């Protein structure tokens, strides 16, 4: 299926049914094998896997290394995820729904990078359900050396939410979306039966902070595994990747606007300085007012008395030379003192 380059939006139904058939056959085969041969173990699920939740994680073109690593980390953390190739930006967003259908996924996490700077994340319930768009910031991946924890690959996570999620309707919707997307289904074939890490979603400063901790001991000592990121909600839509807007975040400022504001502030500063300089220049070169001459100012002026001019006719007397001054030596001085 992945070998040939398929056109997006085509061959949807045929493959879907084919896959289902395959699955049933496999199940039957393995069960029979289990009866006759002890070597091949039965699948983990044994028919218990009922929560068929699959998440498609992929991105658009133009993402940088950090985003790519984040995507890979999410795929590692979620065994119920599937990967797909990068989507061309020329395609409209609703094409993502078709991609999800092809891959038989009912949830989708789509990363979109704009200007090679800003990263947007869409989380959506694919056929009809709600979707949300976030701006992602402060990304730290699994590979960072400060994240010292480790967990089983495919172990089920414990999800922890802030009580603030229950207070607002839009947060409640997001909570449900997160629960359905991030929790690994029980008895998923790729999952491990242990619960050894916990995802926390907290609301602070109008943003959603995501952390992942490893549970070391039963007394709840934790170490961070990573990844970690911050989600800034932009909009919630009723449909998947479209549809009427249900909620808009009033506190959201587009990164472009933010950058623009910074630039304007800097420009304003410079302009202020320039105007100050110009003003000073003008002051200096401006025509200065001549003060009016006060006639009464000369009233109290009294001219000084005239002194007779001294003319020297004779040269001055020579001063006593200081160079060859006779200074007696110490001994002589002592002798003189004695006398």
């Amino acid at each position: 299926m992945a070998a040939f380059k398929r056109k997006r939006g085509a061959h949807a139904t045929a493959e879907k049914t084919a896959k289902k058939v395959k699955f049933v056959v496999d199940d039957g085969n393995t069960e029979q094998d289990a009866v006759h041969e002890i070597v091949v173990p039965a699948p983990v699920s044994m028919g218990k896997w009922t929560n068929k939740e699959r998440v498609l994680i992929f991105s658009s073109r133009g993402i940088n290394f950090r985003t790519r690593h984040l995507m890979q980390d999410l795929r590692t953390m979620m065994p119920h995820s599937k990967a797909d190739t990068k989507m061309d930006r020329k395609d409209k967003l609703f094409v993502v729904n078709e991609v999800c259908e092809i891959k038989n996924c009912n949830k989708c996490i789509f990363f979109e990078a704009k200007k090679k700077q800003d990263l947007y994340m869409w989380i959506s319930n694919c056929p009809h359900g709600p979707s949300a768009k976030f701006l992602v910031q402060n990304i730290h991946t699994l590979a960072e050396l400060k994240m010292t924890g480790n967990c089983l690959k495919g172990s089920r996570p414990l999800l922890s939410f802030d009580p603030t999620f229950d207070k607002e309707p839009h947060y409640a919707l997001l909570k449900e979306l997160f629960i359905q997307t991030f929790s690994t289904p029980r008895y998923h074939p790729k999952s491990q039966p242990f619960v050894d890490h916990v995802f926390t979603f907290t609301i602070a400063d109008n943003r959603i902070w995501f952390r992942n901790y490893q549970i070391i001991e039963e007394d709840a000592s934790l170490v961070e595994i990573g990844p970690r990121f911050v989600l800034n909600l932009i909009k919630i839509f009723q449909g998947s990747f479209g549809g009427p807007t249900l909620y808009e975040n009033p506190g959201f400022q587009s990164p472009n606007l933010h950058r623009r504001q910074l630039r304007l502030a800097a420009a304003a500063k410079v302009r202020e300085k320039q105007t100050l300089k110009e003003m000073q220049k003008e002051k200096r070169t401006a025509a200065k007012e001549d003060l009016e001459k006060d006639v009464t100012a000369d009233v109290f002026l009294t001219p000084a008395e005239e002194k007779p001019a001294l003319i020297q006719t004779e040269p001055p007397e020579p001063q006593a030379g200081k160079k060859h001054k006779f200074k007696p030596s110490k001994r002589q001085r002592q002798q003189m003192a004695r006398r």
Partner: protein
Amino acid sequence: MVIALKTMESAEEESLLGLESEEEDSELSDGELQEAFTKGLLKPGMNVLVEKTKKLVNNVEGLKQCLADFRRDLSWVERLDLTCLPAKDALSQVEGKVPTETNGGPDAEDDFQREMFFYRQAQATVLEALPLMKMHDINTRRPDDYFAEMAKSDQHMQKIRQKLTTKQMILEKSEKAKKLREQRKFGKKVQIEVIQKRQKEKKAMMTAVKKYQKGMSDKLDFLEGDQKKGKDSSGGPSKALNKKGPSAKRKYKDQKFGFGGKKSGKKWNTKESYNDVSGFKARVAHAKGGKKGKKGKQNKRPGKSVRKKMKGRS
């Protein structure tokens, strides 16, 4: 832009004006203003241009409806989700810090507080979830012989471990260096004191020796002082020669010509060399004992002042 009036406006007028102003980007021209005035929209008083507040969508009903449709009522075991407040922080209580948690969430600017908030939230969740998980037979600890692929490779964990150990080492080294520096300062003080003490002793010794030579004092106490110490250390009477070993001349010759090895770097201002007053000979220094000392040289060269006098006379 909307022309806001000092008096109250009805919503209709506002929307109308809004529509009008949205049509052009610049301020309303005179013609339009006149029209608005005739219509009665503009009233006397100051008319100020005000930014139209953007209406943000918050469709609460829609959200609730959507949630109701979207919700899947799975058992807790499938979801494993919990909502709880962070655990009580004993340390902050002790210190008496007022938590900003009452505002709804931690202060996002204070990094440490924020991270501690998240950590405590996770802790509270784990503590709450453990009994629930036990009920459903889910383990958090895997058995020791259970080897499975981990999210981070072993190589990566090795790197992390190495980094931690290097950090630790650097810290220890810096601690050691600080201690050494402190010690050295202290040691320097002690050294200075000791040197001063020694200088005092030497001075006292020299004055005592001079006094004895000049005949001002008959006592040989200064010698005894050393001898007493020497006696105590050696214990028992021994020949003077033996005590000193080979003579000074012999020693000097040995040092200079014999035994090979490094000759340079032998003269150092060490404790021993400084304290060593053996090289001092009073007779040589003060030019005393001519006949006994030097029988060979009969014609002893007179000193400078004598020579000068002789020169002056002749």
